[in-house]
């Protein structure tokens, strides 16, 4: 909410459709390896080419179209038609000549404009057209300070994705992660944040102390994470807007593996006492700590279900690391993982229907999902080492990190962020300036 005010970003509303909208195109994203929808995106060039505080408005219009194109293509659900094939450039002021778009194979068309307003803001409009049906599917208008044009592009991507898939998008989001650099015996691990497409990258800590396992608040511009500040591992809270961090409660034992509750009011975490890690939940307003588990085994990596009623966590209480589910008061603990190998880092999907996990068996690591009752286990990806899945806010994409083996020359051991569709398709690297690990996806930013 605060962020919205700062950005002075406003959405005026739906542009009324000129033609009745009968959706004939639709993408079913629940099926694997869906044929990408051919989509044409024209440059968002308006009438003028005035200079703004962030470059010429015509250039902004072109860039917006590029960012939307990249977003949609990266989802794996769309294939953008090369603009060089376009028969006409798509004058946004008039209804498209659908025959010309059908001729280049487009099934959907996005047209738009970016115009400089008298008050210095940029007005961006877009319309999504059903090329085969010859009708407008949606249209929206936004106003923003010129330097925020990227957010407008991601909002447009989300609107197109939602109209064509029926599900919320995940483009107007950010990733917080651990940026890694330096030789493997002396790795520097810094908290870093970027847009989901890798832009607007920023380091949040300076690398003088190690940080791990960051997680976004579902309700505020805050991150909880494990920091080794002063060589004392404890859970911290970082305010993205002010850049300030604070330790979350001063307890005798180490605290780690933090994660917010769905309402953002609590942080669930592990606390170790004399070598024994159990799960606790900390109420942020009172800093009161409540114990949820009491067992001589390791209990860690807790994650709430979307409505906060259950908690899934990792424990070796049965002799090896497995995934458990309990009520959020710590009662009714049940083991849910029974496959071959060991299981760790369970994370509840924002949709509630699945738990993502890291699995280790036969010298390899895997990212997979299972239902909260443990049935329907499905492996999505495997490699020499990978762990720590995080869900896109719509529960359709998982991001995680991979670590590559060392070579005998003292090299290797790189870490990279990767993402994959829940369908098991569309696996791709998420580019970071340095090595990256421990990604955590933000909620949609509005």
């Amino acid at each position, binding site marked *: 909410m605060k962020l919205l005010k700062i950005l002075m970003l406003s959405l005026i509303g739906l542009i009324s459709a000129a033609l009745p909208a009968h959706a004939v195109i639709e993408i079913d994203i629940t099926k694997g390896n869906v044929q990408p929808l051919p989509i044409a995106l024209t440059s968002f060039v308006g009438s003028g080419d005035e200079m703004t505080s962030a470059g010429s408005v015509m250039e902004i219009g072109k860039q917006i179209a590029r960012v939307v194109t990249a977003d949609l293509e990266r989802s794996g659900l769309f294939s953008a038609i090369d603009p060089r094939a376009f028969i006409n450039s798509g004058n946004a002021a008039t209804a498209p000549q659908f025959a010309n778009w059908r001729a280049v194979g487009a099934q959907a068309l996005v047209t738009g404009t970016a115009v400089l307003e008298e008050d210095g803001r940029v007005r961006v409009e877009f319309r999504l057209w059903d090329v085969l049906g010859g009708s407008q599917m949606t249209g929206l208008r936004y106003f923003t300070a010129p330097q925020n044009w990227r957010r407008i592009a991601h909002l447009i991507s989300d609107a197109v994705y939602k109209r064509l898939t029926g599900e919320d998008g995940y483009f107007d989001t950010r990733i917080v992660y651990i940026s890694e650099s330096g030789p493997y015996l002396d790795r520097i691990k810094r908290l870093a944040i970027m847009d989901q497409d890798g832009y607007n990258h920023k380091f949040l800590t300076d690398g003088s102390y190690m940080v*791990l396992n960051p997680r976004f608040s579902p309700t505020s511009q805050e991150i909880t994470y494990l920091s080794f500040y002063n060589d004392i591992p404890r859970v911290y809270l970082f305010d993205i807007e002010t850049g300030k961090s604070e330790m979350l409660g001063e307890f005798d034992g180490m605290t780690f593996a933090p994660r917010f509750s769905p309402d953002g009011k609590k942080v669930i975490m592990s606390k170790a006492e004399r*070598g024994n890690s159990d799960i606790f939940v900390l109420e942020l307003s009172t800093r009161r700590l409540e114990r949820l588990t009491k067992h001589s085994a390791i209990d860690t990596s807790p994650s709430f279900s979307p409505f906060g009623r259950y908690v899934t966590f990792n424990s070796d209480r049965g002799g090896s690391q497995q995934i458990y589910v309990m009520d959020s008061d710590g009662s009714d603990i049940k083991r849910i993982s029974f496959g071959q190998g060991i299981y760790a880092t369970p994370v509840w999907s924002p949709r509630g229907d699945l738990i993502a996990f890291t699995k280790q068996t036969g010298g390899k690591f895997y990212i997979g999902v299972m239902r909260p009752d443990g049935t329907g286990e499905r492996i999505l990806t495997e490699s020499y080492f990978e762990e*720590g899945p995080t869900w896109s806010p719509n529960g359709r994409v998982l991001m995680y990190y991979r670590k590559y083996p060392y070579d005998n020359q003292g090299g290797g051991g790189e870490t990279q962020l990767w993402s994959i569709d829940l369908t098991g398709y569309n696996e791709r690297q998420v580019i970071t300036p340095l090595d990256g690990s421990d990604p955590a996806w933000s909620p949609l930013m509005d």
Partner: protein
Amino acid sequence: MLKNKFYAKFLIMIGAVLILSACSNSGDEAMTETPTPVEQTPEPVSTPEPMAAPVDMVSQESLNSSMGGSMSEGDMVYFAYDRYDVDASARSVLGAQANWMKANNVNVIVEGHCDERGTREYNIALGDRRANAVKNYLVAMGVSASRIRTVSYGKERPQGTDNAQNRRGYTRVN
């Protein structure tokens, strides 16, 4: 003392070899004989001598050796995969550490580490178990708990690419 213990063990081993060869030499008849019991006389562990010039044990220098730097056998103990129990070889190293701490007025930090074949969060917990296993042993050997701080680095501070070398507890002067 450590040397004496080792020597005692060595004598027992020689004894065992002799008995075996005696058996094979004397044939069937020997099978019915009651073998001479080997008397083990373990060294008393309760009366450690203060060590003036330690060789087998931790010197102040090695305790001060920087993290991830050249390894000294005296400040490092190793653990089996996903385990945190202090085995026999670790006990002898920690026994020497305890003696040295009792003779020197220093506080220490015990670091718990893991190999890299596991998840970060679990390894933070496992490293804490290992650091505390080391601390508990030192305390059992008579070192005051208040002189020992533990910290787990999980799998984040390997000292090489060998997994077995990374599953360790490292004692350094605070």
